[in-house]
């Protein structure tokens, strides 16, 4: 099972990102774990400065914006 971490200090876009991953995963019938990381030290330890960021299985796959549905689908089915 893939683990997604959404990095962000709790802004609206971060919630949108987490919801998007959740929706897409359900749509594709893939089980994923989603975790929201709000601690600044933890966010920075991934090297991400612009939030929201997305970490998949401990690799940063995206930062700086809400990802597109296409991107999310790509990660889930990769």
């Amino acid at each position, binding site marked *: 099972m893939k683990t997604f971490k959404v990095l962000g*200090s709790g*802004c609206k876009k971060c919630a949108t990102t987490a919801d998007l991953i959740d929706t897409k995963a359900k749509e594709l019938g893939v089980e994923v774990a989603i975790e929201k990381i709000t601690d600044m*030290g933890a966010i920075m330890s991934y090297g*991400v400065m612009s939030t929201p960021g997305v970490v998949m299985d401990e690799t*940063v796959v995206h930062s700086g*914006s809400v990802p597109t549905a296409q991107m999310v689908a790509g990660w889930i089915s990769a």
Partner: protein
Amino acid sequence: MFEIFTRLADWAAYGLLRLSPDSQLGSAVHFFIEDVTKIFFLLAIIVFAIGFFRSMLTPERVRKVVAGRSRAVSYPMAVGLGAVTPFCSCSSVPLFIGFLEAGIPLGVTMAFLIASPMINEVAVVVLAAAVGWKVAAMYVVAGLTVGIVGGLLIEVFKLEKWVEEYVWKIRMGDTPVQQGASGFKQRLQYAWGQVKEIVGRIWLYVLVGIALGAALHGFVPQEFFLKYASADNLLAVPSAVLVGIPLYSNATGVIPIVEALMAKGVPIGTVLALMMSVAAISLPEMIILRKVLKPQLIATFTGILFFAFIGVGFLFNALLT
């Protein structure tokens, strides 16, 4: 070049709605229609063009470029890149920590944060369209200068002690390499995404700004401004800056107000000082920065900008009126 929007507004306000050009309502509605069409048209075009050609200028890259440079290079670079790097104010905190962690001095980091909301490509072009290239250029020069001076003062006063201690302990992981958009189709997609994101973020500020500008334009008589906001009134500039500090609007959103005030004969320095203070510092921004800065530093930072904007206002009023 922008006559088409004036004509469109003529047609809509005086033709379609049958308002008189001489009535207060007529001139306000005309201003509103002209500015809504003109500003949103420009906004979409500029954001799209910039998104297309400059697909990836991220805070992470700026950090890498500025780190380790001498001050003579890093200050001008920080304000210049601050002006053109898009980032949402909700990213101010990670950006701040990331800069310091890379060894970028506090003063340089603050210079970046001061310049960034005040100046951006979109605001500069819309400002030029509203009040001319000369004023737009002066605004940019003044804004960059305030950024550098503000940063240098924070450095001279050695205010690192007023940064929250935990900030210095954070260690950053390797910054991920971001894939920039490449290829025509991807660039188009990225540019379109930028339009949606940026317009989505600022449209309300712009609309409110236009509505206020239209109200000033139509309903507040010129005499009012001549009486209270002329260059002779020494309190006009400080009051404009003071009013602007807690208020927040995107720089582009202030422009219709700038346009209306200038048309009413308010001196340029006073107007630009107001625009800077509305765009640069605001209560929400202070609350966000409170996570990394102690109250003393926020107060000092606000104080420096307060006096810098007043200086800009008086200087331009003295030079140009």
